[in-house]
Protein backbone atom coordinates (compact mmCIF):
# COMPACT_ATOMS: atom_id res chain seq x y z
CA UNK A 1 0.00 0.00 0.00
CA UNK A 2 1.52 3.36 -0.99
CA UNK A 3 1.92 6.09 1.55
CA UNK A 4 0.76 9.68 1.19
CA UNK A 5 2.84 12.57 2.45
CA UNK A 6 1.46 16.07 2.83
CA UNK A 7 3.09 19.45 3.29
CA UNK A 8 1.76 22.96 3.66
CA UNK A 9 2.37 24.88 0.45
CA UNK A 10 4.99 27.59 0.75
CA UNK A 11 2.65 29.83 -1.21
CA UNK A 12 0.42 30.20 1.82
CA UNK A 13 0.22 32.16 5.04
CA UNK A 14 -1.76 30.76 7.95
CA UNK A 15 -2.80 31.67 11.45
CA UNK A 16 -5.01 30.15 14.14
CA UNK A 17 -7.75 32.73 14.67
CA UNK A 18 -10.58 32.24 17.14
CA UNK A 19 -9.97 28.50 17.30
CA UNK A 20 -9.97 28.04 13.53
CA UNK A 21 -7.05 27.78 11.16
CA UNK A 22 -7.27 30.51 8.54
CA UNK A 23 -5.14 29.93 5.45
CA UNK A 24 -4.42 32.43 2.71
CA UNK A 25 -3.09 31.50 -0.70
CA UNK A 26 -0.59 34.24 -1.49
CA UNK A 27 -0.84 33.31 -5.18
CA UNK A 28 -4.45 34.37 -5.70
CA UNK A 29 -5.44 35.70 -2.23
CA UNK A 30 -8.03 32.93 -1.74
CA UNK A 31 -8.89 32.49 1.92
CA UNK A 32 -9.74 29.18 3.58
CA UNK A 33 -11.26 28.67 7.02
CA UNK A 34 -10.35 25.09 8.00
CA UNK A 35 -12.57 23.01 10.25
CA UNK A 36 -11.16 21.23 13.29
CA UNK A 37 -10.03 18.10 11.45
CA UNK A 38 -8.52 20.04 8.58
CA UNK A 39 -6.75 22.34 11.06
CA UNK A 40 -5.16 19.33 12.77
CA UNK A 41 -4.03 17.87 9.46
CA UNK A 42 -2.74 21.26 8.33
CA UNK A 43 -0.60 21.72 11.42
CA UNK A 44 0.80 18.20 11.15
CA UNK A 45 1.53 18.41 7.42
CA UNK A 46 5.32 18.55 7.64
CA UNK A 47 6.04 16.63 4.42
CA UNK A 48 7.91 13.90 6.33
CA UNK A 49 5.24 12.14 8.39
CA UNK A 50 3.02 9.72 6.41
CA UNK A 51 -0.65 10.71 6.43
CA UNK A 52 -1.60 7.38 7.99
CA UNK A 53 0.72 8.09 10.93
CA UNK A 54 -0.73 11.60 11.32
CA UNK A 55 -4.23 10.15 11.43
CA UNK A 56 -3.24 7.53 14.02
CA UNK A 57 -1.46 10.08 16.18
CA UNK A 58 -3.67 13.15 15.85
CA UNK A 59 -7.15 12.18 14.64
CA UNK A 60 -8.13 8.78 16.05
CA UNK A 61 -7.44 9.69 19.71
CA UNK A 62 -9.59 12.83 19.39
CA UNK A 63 -12.60 11.42 17.54
CA UNK A 64 -14.70 8.29 17.92
CA UNK A 65 -13.89 6.84 14.54
CA UNK A 66 -12.33 3.64 13.26
CA UNK A 67 -8.89 3.82 11.72
CA UNK A 68 -9.89 3.04 8.14
CA UNK A 69 -12.76 5.55 8.06
CA UNK A 70 -10.54 8.21 9.64
CA UNK A 71 -7.80 7.62 7.08
CA UNK A 72 -10.23 7.63 4.13
CA UNK A 73 -11.82 10.89 5.29
CA UNK A 74 -8.40 12.45 5.89
CA UNK A 75 -7.27 11.41 2.42
CA UNK A 76 -10.36 13.02 0.86
CA UNK A 77 -9.70 16.16 2.85
CA UNK A 78 -6.02 16.52 1.94
CA UNK A 79 -6.80 15.83 -1.72
CA UNK A 80 -9.36 18.61 -1.61
CA UNK A 81 -6.85 21.01 -0.07
CA UNK A 82 -4.31 19.84 -2.61
CA UNK A 83 -6.73 20.65 -5.42
CA UNK A 84 -7.06 24.13 -3.92
CA UNK A 85 -3.29 24.51 -4.14
CA UNK A 86 -2.61 25.06 -0.46
CA UNK A 87 -1.34 21.57 0.38
CA UNK A 88 1.26 19.50 -1.46
CA UNK A 89 0.75 15.73 -1.76
CA UNK A 90 3.30 13.10 -2.72
CA UNK A 91 3.89 9.37 -2.41
CA UNK A 92 7.28 9.96 -0.76
CA UNK A 93 8.63 12.44 1.78
CA UNK A 94 8.63 15.95 0.40
CA UNK A 95 12.08 17.50 0.47
CA UNK A 96 12.63 20.81 2.22
CA UNK A 97 13.94 22.50 -0.89
CA UNK A 98 11.26 21.19 -3.24
Amino acid at each position, binding site marked *: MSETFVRRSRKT*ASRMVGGEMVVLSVVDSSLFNLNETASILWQAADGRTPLRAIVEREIIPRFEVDAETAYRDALDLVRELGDQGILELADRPIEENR
Partner: protein
Amino acid sequence: MSNREQAIVTITIGGLPITVRANDASFASILNKRYAGYVSSGAEAPYLLEADIVAAMRPAEEVELEVHREGDEWLMDRGDFRARWNPRARRGVVTQSANPYSIDSALRIIHSLELAKVGGFLLHAASAIRGNRAFLLSGVSGAGKTTITRLAPSDAIRLTDEISYIRPVDGEYCAFGTPFSGELGVPGENAVAPLAALYFLTQGLENRIAPMSRETAVSKLLRNILFFAHDEDLTSRVFRAACDFVESVELAQLIFRPDPEVWSLMA
Protein backbone atom coordinates in the same frame (compact mmCIF):
# COMPACT_ATOMS: atom_id res chain seq x y z
CA MET B 1 15.24 74.19 -13.39
CA SER B 2 15.28 76.80 -10.61
CA ASN B 3 13.42 76.41 -7.34
CA ARG B 4 11.10 79.22 -8.35
CA GLU B 5 9.62 76.98 -11.02
CA GLN B 6 8.97 74.12 -8.65
CA ALA B 7 6.01 73.29 -6.47
CA ILE B 8 7.03 71.91 -3.10
CA VAL B 9 4.22 70.75 -0.86
CA THR B 10 4.35 68.29 2.02
CA ILE B 11 1.26 66.14 2.51
CA THR B 12 1.03 64.39 5.87
CA ILE B 13 -1.49 61.57 6.10
CA GLY B 14 -1.45 59.07 8.94
CA GLY B 15 1.53 60.87 10.45
CA LEU B 16 3.60 60.06 7.36
CA PRO B 17 4.85 63.22 5.63
CA ILE B 18 5.50 62.97 1.90
CA THR B 19 6.96 65.97 0.14
CA VAL B 20 5.73 66.34 -3.42
CA ARG B 21 8.21 68.26 -5.53
CA ALA B 22 6.76 69.08 -8.93
CA ASN B 23 8.40 70.62 -11.97
CA ASP B 24 5.35 72.84 -12.45
CA ALA B 25 4.78 75.62 -9.90
CA SER B 26 1.05 75.75 -10.67
CA PHE B 27 0.69 72.19 -9.33
CA ALA B 28 1.10 73.56 -5.78
CA SER B 29 -2.32 75.19 -5.87
CA ILE B 30 -3.90 71.92 -7.02
CA LEU B 31 -2.24 70.07 -4.12
CA ASN B 32 -3.06 72.76 -1.57
CA LYS B 33 -6.70 72.68 -2.57
CA ARG B 34 -7.02 68.89 -2.79
CA TYR B 35 -5.20 68.20 0.48
CA ALA B 36 -6.38 71.18 2.52
CA GLY B 37 -5.85 70.40 6.18
CA TYR B 38 -3.09 67.90 5.36
CA VAL B 39 -0.48 70.14 3.72
CA SER B 40 2.44 72.11 4.98
CA SER B 41 5.29 73.94 3.30
CA GLY B 42 8.87 74.42 4.32
CA ALA B 43 11.53 71.78 4.80
CA GLU B 44 11.32 68.57 2.81
CA ALA B 45 9.98 65.53 4.61
CA PRO B 46 11.88 62.22 4.84
CA TYR B 47 9.61 60.86 2.08
CA LEU B 48 9.94 62.49 -1.32
CA LEU B 49 7.78 62.08 -4.39
CA GLU B 50 8.98 63.89 -7.49
CA ALA B 51 6.07 64.84 -9.72
CA ASP B 52 6.94 65.07 -13.39
CA ILE B 53 4.04 67.07 -14.75
CA VAL B 54 3.46 66.51 -18.46
CA ALA B 55 0.94 67.98 -20.88
CA ALA B 56 -1.25 64.92 -21.25
CA MET B 57 -1.52 61.24 -20.38
CA ARG B 58 -4.09 58.61 -21.32
CA PRO B 59 -7.51 58.64 -19.63
CA ALA B 60 -7.58 56.54 -16.43
CA GLU B 61 -10.42 54.33 -17.66
CA GLU B 62 -8.41 53.08 -20.63
CA VAL B 63 -5.86 51.13 -18.60
CA GLU B 64 -6.37 48.91 -15.58
CA LEU B 65 -4.15 49.79 -12.65
CA GLU B 66 -1.07 47.61 -12.50
CA VAL B 67 1.27 47.54 -9.53
CA HIS B 68 4.27 45.27 -9.38
CA ARG B 69 7.72 45.10 -7.88
CA GLU B 70 11.05 45.21 -9.67
CA GLY B 71 13.90 44.79 -7.21
CA ASP B 72 13.56 47.42 -4.52
CA GLU B 73 11.07 49.47 -6.50
CA TRP B 74 7.33 49.34 -6.92
CA LEU B 75 6.06 50.28 -10.35
CA MET B 76 2.56 51.61 -10.93
CA ASP B 77 0.78 52.29 -14.18
CA ARG B 78 -2.82 53.31 -14.74
CA GLY B 79 -2.57 55.15 -18.02
CA ASP B 80 -3.25 58.56 -16.49
CA PHE B 81 -0.12 58.18 -14.36
CA ARG B 82 3.05 56.13 -14.09
CA ALA B 83 4.98 56.00 -10.86
CA ARG B 84 7.91 54.32 -9.14
CA TRP B 85 8.35 54.09 -5.41
CA ASN B 86 11.34 52.80 -3.48
CA PRO B 87 10.30 52.13 0.14
CA ARG B 88 13.90 51.64 1.24
CA ALA B 89 15.04 54.99 -0.17
CA ARG B 90 11.68 56.60 0.66
CA ARG B 91 11.79 58.17 -2.78
CA GLY B 92 9.65 57.98 -5.85
CA VAL B 93 8.60 59.62 -9.08
CA VAL B 94 5.15 60.07 -10.56
CA THR B 95 4.55 61.17 -14.14
CA GLN B 96 1.13 62.65 -14.76
CA SER B 97 -0.73 65.67 -16.05
CA ALA B 98 -1.62 68.52 -13.69
CA ASN B 99 -4.68 67.01 -12.00
CA PRO B 100 -5.44 65.94 -8.42
CA TYR B 101 -6.86 62.49 -9.24
CA SER B 102 -3.72 60.79 -10.51
CA ILE B 103 -1.51 61.83 -7.61
CA ASP B 104 -4.34 60.86 -5.24
CA SER B 105 -4.20 57.30 -6.55
CA ALA B 106 -0.42 57.21 -6.42
CA LEU B 107 -0.44 58.44 -2.82
CA ARG B 108 -3.00 55.80 -1.78
CA ILE B 109 -0.79 53.09 -3.21
CA ILE B 110 2.37 54.50 -1.63
CA HIS B 111 0.65 54.75 1.75
CA SER B 112 -0.67 51.18 1.48
CA LEU B 113 2.89 49.98 0.77
CA GLU B 114 4.35 51.95 3.66
CA LEU B 115 1.58 50.81 6.00
CA ALA B 116 2.25 47.16 5.17
CA LYS B 117 5.75 47.60 6.60
CA VAL B 118 4.40 48.58 10.00
CA GLY B 119 1.34 46.31 10.31
CA GLY B 120 -1.17 48.91 9.15
CA PHE B 121 -3.52 49.16 6.21
CA LEU B 122 -6.06 51.26 4.34
CA LEU B 123 -9.58 49.95 4.80
CA HIS B 124 -12.83 50.50 2.94
CA ALA B 125 -14.47 52.03 5.98
CA ALA B 126 -15.91 55.23 7.29
CA SER B 127 -14.43 56.30 10.59
CA ALA B 128 -15.15 58.85 13.25
CA ILE B 129 -13.98 59.79 16.71
CA ARG B 130 -16.39 59.98 19.62
CA GLY B 131 -15.26 60.41 23.19
CA ASN B 132 -11.58 60.26 22.19
CA ARG B 133 -12.00 56.79 20.64
CA ALA B 134 -12.32 55.95 16.95
CA PHE B 135 -14.98 53.74 15.42
CA LEU B 136 -14.43 52.04 12.08
CA LEU B 137 -17.52 51.32 10.00
CA SER B 138 -16.55 48.99 7.22
CA GLY B 139 -18.37 47.73 4.19
CA VAL B 140 -18.23 47.43 0.46
CA SER B 141 -19.67 50.07 -1.83
CA GLY B 142 -23.36 50.52 -1.01
CA ALA B 143 -23.08 49.16 2.55
CA GLY B 144 -23.89 52.58 3.98
CA LYS B 145 -20.55 54.18 4.84
CA THR B 146 -21.51 57.58 3.46
CA THR B 147 -25.07 57.32 4.82
CA ILE B 148 -23.93 56.64 8.37
CA THR B 149 -21.30 59.39 8.13
CA ARG B 150 -23.97 61.89 7.09
CA LEU B 151 -25.96 60.90 10.19
CA ALA B 152 -23.04 61.50 12.57
CA PRO B 153 -23.82 63.88 15.45
CA SER B 154 -22.05 67.22 15.73
CA ASP B 155 -19.69 65.96 18.46
CA ALA B 156 -18.31 63.25 16.17
CA ILE B 157 -15.03 64.01 14.41
CA ARG B 158 -15.36 62.57 10.92
CA LEU B 159 -12.14 60.95 9.80
CA THR B 160 -13.40 59.74 6.42
CA ASP B 161 -16.53 58.38 4.75
CA GLU B 162 -14.62 56.03 2.45
CA ILE B 163 -11.03 55.00 3.23
CA SER B 164 -9.79 54.63 6.77
CA TYR B 165 -6.14 54.76 7.73
CA ILE B 166 -5.11 52.31 10.44
CA ARG B 167 -1.79 51.53 12.00
CA PRO B 168 -0.46 50.62 15.42
CA VAL B 169 1.00 53.43 17.51
CA ASP B 170 2.89 52.39 20.65
CA GLY B 171 1.21 48.98 20.52
CA GLU B 172 -2.33 50.31 20.09
CA TYR B 173 -4.26 50.50 16.83
CA CYS B 174 -5.18 54.04 15.86
CA ALA B 175 -7.36 55.50 13.13
CA PHE B 176 -6.18 58.61 11.31
CA GLY B 177 -8.20 61.07 9.29
CA THR B 178 -7.71 60.96 5.53
CA PRO B 179 -8.44 63.33 2.66
CA PHE B 180 -9.70 60.31 0.70
CA SER B 181 -13.45 60.84 0.54
CA GLY B 182 -16.28 58.93 -1.06
CA GLU B 183 -19.72 60.13 -2.10
CA LEU B 184 -19.69 62.75 0.64
CA GLY B 185 -16.95 64.58 -1.27
CA VAL B 186 -15.60 66.09 1.93
CA PRO B 187 -12.12 65.28 3.26
CA GLY B 188 -11.94 63.86 6.75
CA GLU B 189 -10.63 65.79 9.71
CA ASN B 190 -6.89 65.54 10.19
CA ALA B 191 -7.15 63.85 13.60
CA VAL B 192 -6.17 60.58 15.23
CA ALA B 193 -7.51 58.41 18.04
CA PRO B 194 -7.07 54.89 19.38
CA LEU B 195 -9.61 52.43 18.07
CA ALA B 196 -12.71 51.58 20.07
CA ALA B 197 -14.13 49.03 17.62
CA LEU B 198 -14.50 47.89 14.04
CA TYR B 199 -18.08 47.36 12.96
CA PHE B 200 -19.08 45.72 9.68
CA LEU B 201 -22.13 47.54 8.33
CA THR B 202 -25.40 45.85 7.42
CA GLN B 203 -28.50 47.89 6.72
CA GLY B 204 -31.61 46.63 8.52
CA LEU B 205 -34.81 47.62 10.26
CA GLU B 206 -33.28 48.37 13.65
CA ASN B 207 -30.07 49.57 15.23
CA ARG B 208 -28.11 46.92 17.07
CA ILE B 209 -24.69 45.39 17.44
CA ALA B 210 -24.42 41.67 16.72
CA PRO B 211 -21.42 39.58 17.74
CA MET B 212 -19.09 38.24 15.11
CA SER B 213 -16.50 35.50 15.40
CA ARG B 214 -12.89 36.48 14.85
CA GLU B 215 -12.48 33.92 12.07
CA THR B 216 -15.42 35.46 10.20
CA ALA B 217 -14.08 38.93 10.90
CA VAL B 218 -10.67 38.19 9.43
CA SER B 219 -12.28 37.10 6.15
CA LYS B 220 -14.43 40.22 5.99
CA LEU B 221 -11.53 42.43 6.98
CA LEU B 222 -9.27 41.05 4.25
CA ARG B 223 -12.00 41.61 1.67
CA ASN B 224 -12.15 45.30 2.63
CA ILE B 225 -8.45 46.10 2.89
CA LEU B 226 -7.22 48.12 -0.08
CA PHE B 227 -4.87 45.89 -1.91
CA PHE B 228 -3.17 47.14 -5.02
CA ALA B 229 -0.34 44.73 -5.74
CA HIS B 230 -0.28 41.04 -6.58
CA ASP B 231 2.85 40.27 -4.64
CA GLU B 232 3.35 37.23 -2.43
CA ASP B 233 5.44 38.89 0.26
CA LEU B 234 3.11 41.86 0.48
CA THR B 235 0.07 39.55 0.59
CA SER B 236 1.60 37.65 3.51
CA ARG B 237 2.31 40.89 5.36
CA VAL B 238 -1.24 42.12 4.92
CA PHE B 239 -2.60 38.75 6.08
CA ARG B 240 -0.48 38.88 9.24
CA ALA B 241 -1.55 42.47 9.86
CA ALA B 242 -5.22 41.50 9.53
CA CYS B 243 -4.79 38.54 11.91
CA ASP B 244 -2.99 40.70 14.47
CA PHE B 245 -5.70 43.30 14.16
CA VAL B 246 -8.67 40.97 14.75
CA GLU B 247 -6.95 39.54 17.80
CA SER B 248 -6.68 42.89 19.52
CA VAL B 249 -9.66 45.01 18.47
CA GLU B 250 -13.36 44.73 19.33
CA LEU B 251 -15.19 43.48 16.23
CA ALA B 252 -18.90 43.14 15.54
CA GLN B 253 -21.62 43.57 12.99
CA LEU B 254 -23.52 46.85 13.14
CA ILE B 255 -27.05 46.46 11.86
CA PHE B 256 -28.50 49.90 11.30
CA ARG B 257 -31.33 51.83 9.75
CA PRO B 258 -30.71 55.30 8.28
CA ASP B 259 -31.45 57.12 11.52
CA PRO B 260 -29.16 59.30 13.68
CA GLU B 261 -30.07 57.07 16.66
CA VAL B 262 -27.54 54.53 15.43
CA TRP B 263 -24.80 56.77 16.80
CA SER B 264 -26.05 56.16 20.34
CA LEU B 265 -24.41 52.73 19.94
CA MET B 266 -21.07 54.46 19.43
CA ALA B 267 -21.01 56.87 22.34
